[in-house]
C-alpha cells in the first residue's frame, strides 16, 4: 500500500515540478490593459500592474473584491497584513492593493 501511495505522490510531485519549471521562465507579460504602467527606468522592459488591477485579479480569486469605501486607511493596513498571510500573497501584490484601497476609499 505504501509503495502505491509513494508512487502516486512521486508522479504528482513530478508533474507539478515540470509545470513549475515550465512556467518559471523569464517570459514577460504582455501589456493588454490600459491600467498598467511601464517601469521605463529598467533596462529589462517589464510591465508593472497597478493596485487597482491587482485588486480586481487577486481578491476575486476567493471572494468578491471589497469596496474600498468600506474601511478607513488604518483598517485597510490591518486587513492587508491579515490577507497577505491568509491568501499567501506576494509583498508587491499586497502593497499595491493596500495603496489602491487607501487612495480610493
Amino acid at each position, binding site marked *: 500500500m505504501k509503495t502505491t501511495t509513494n508512487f502516486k505522490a512521486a508522479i504528482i510531485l513530478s508533474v507539478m515540478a515540470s509545470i513549475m519549471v515550465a512556467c518559471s*521562465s523569464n*517570459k514577460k507579460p504582455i501589456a493588454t490593459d490600459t491600467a498598467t504602467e511601464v517601469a521605463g527606468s529598467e533596462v529589462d522592459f517589464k510591465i508593472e500592474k497597478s493596485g487597482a488591477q491587482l485588486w480586481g*485579479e487577486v481578491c476575486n480569486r476567493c471572494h468578491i473584491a471589497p469596496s474600498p469605501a468600506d474601511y478607513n*486607511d488604518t483598517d485597510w493596513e490591518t486587513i492587508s*497584513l491579515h490577507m497577505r498571510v491568509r491568501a*499567501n500573497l*506576494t509583498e508587491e501584490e499586497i502593497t499595491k492593493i493596500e495603496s489602491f484601497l487607501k487612495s480610493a476609499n
Partner: protein
Amino acid sequence: MTLIILGLGSSALAQTYNTFEPSKTQFMLRGYGHTGFEYLDTGGEQESTFLGATFAPIFLYKHSDKLMFEAELEFELEGNELKTGLEYADVMYVLNKHMTVRAGKFLLPFGTFMERLHPAWINRLPSRPLGFGHDGIAPASDIGVELRGAFDLGGPKLNYAVYVTNGPRIKDGSEEPEEAGMLDFGYYEDVNLAKALGGRIGLLPLSDSSMEWGISAYMTNSTGAEDSDYKDVGAFLWALDLSYVKSITPLQGVVDIKAQYNSSNVDTATYYEIEDGISEPYSFDNQSSSFYTQLSYRPIMSGSDFMKQLEFVGRYSDFNAPEGAEWEEKSTQYAFGLNYWLSWRSVVKFSYQTTKMEGGHDSDGTTRTNGLFVHWAIGF
C-alpha cells in the same frame, strides 16, 4: 479672560483631535455570520427547520507592520445547545518579503477549501463538499508552527507553506467502535512524540493570476498514543487543488471554477468489534478519497442591475471511505444554487442538493437525501 478661554479651548480641541490619530498598534473586529432554513427528505423521512444563527468573530491585533495576532471564535446553536469553538488563534511575523512564520492554532493549507473558501460568506453554496468537515478526511486546522510565503516569477507566481503540528489521533474503536480507523483531526492534544509534517505549493502560471494549481501533502509516522498498539500506525495524505477565476467578455460575466481531490492513506492495523460479548479482530485497507468541483457564474456585465447581483452555481462531490471499515461509505452529491449578492460580502443563497450514500455508519443500504436550503450570510 477671553483669550485664556480660547487658548484652553484650542488646547482641548488639539488633544481631542490627537485622539483620532492612528495608534501604532491597531485592533480590529471582523468576522461573519449566517442563518437560514433547510428542508431535508431522507428516504421518505422529512424534516424542516430554521437554523440558529452562526456567529464567527475574528479578532485582528496588528502590533506592527510585521507582527500580528489573529483569532476566530465560533458560536453556533446545535439543537438546544450553544456550541463554541476556536477556529484559529495564531501569532505571525513577517521575516522577509518571501517568508512569514506563524505559530499557534492555524488553518492548514491542505488544498484550499478549508483555508480559504469555507467561510459562509465566501462559500458559494450553503453546504460543504463531501469529505470536508465532521468525519471528513481533509485536515482543517491544528496546533504548531508554519513558514509560508510567495514569489513573483516575472509573471507567474509561486506560493508555499510548510508546517509542523501535533497531528491527528487515530480512533481505535474503544469509544466509538463504528469509527475505528478514522483519523480524528479535531483532537488537538498531542498523544505521542511524533509530529505531523505538511505543506502546500501553489502555482499561478498565468500573468493575470486567474489560475492556480496546488499540491499538498501531510504525513505523520504515528497516530496512536505512545503506549498503545496504534503507536506505529502512520498516515500519508495528499491533495490537488485548482482555481480558475476569469472575467470573460463574451459571457458577460465572471466564471469561477474550483476543484480539490483529497487522498488519505492510513497504515493497516487491527481493530476489534464486539459481537455477542466476544471481541473479534478485523482489519481493512485504510484508504479514503474525496473530490469536488464547482462552477459558478456571475453576469456582472449584464445590462440589468438585478442580473448583475445574481450568481449561478453547480457542484459535484464524492467521498469514498475504506471497504471493510465500519464506516465504509460511497457517496456522491450534486448541488445547484442561485445566489443574490446584496453587497460584496452579503449573500442570500437558494440551493437544491441531492446526495446518494451507500453504506455509512451502521447502514448497509443506499440512502438518498434531497435538500432545499435558503441561507443568508454576511461578512463584516
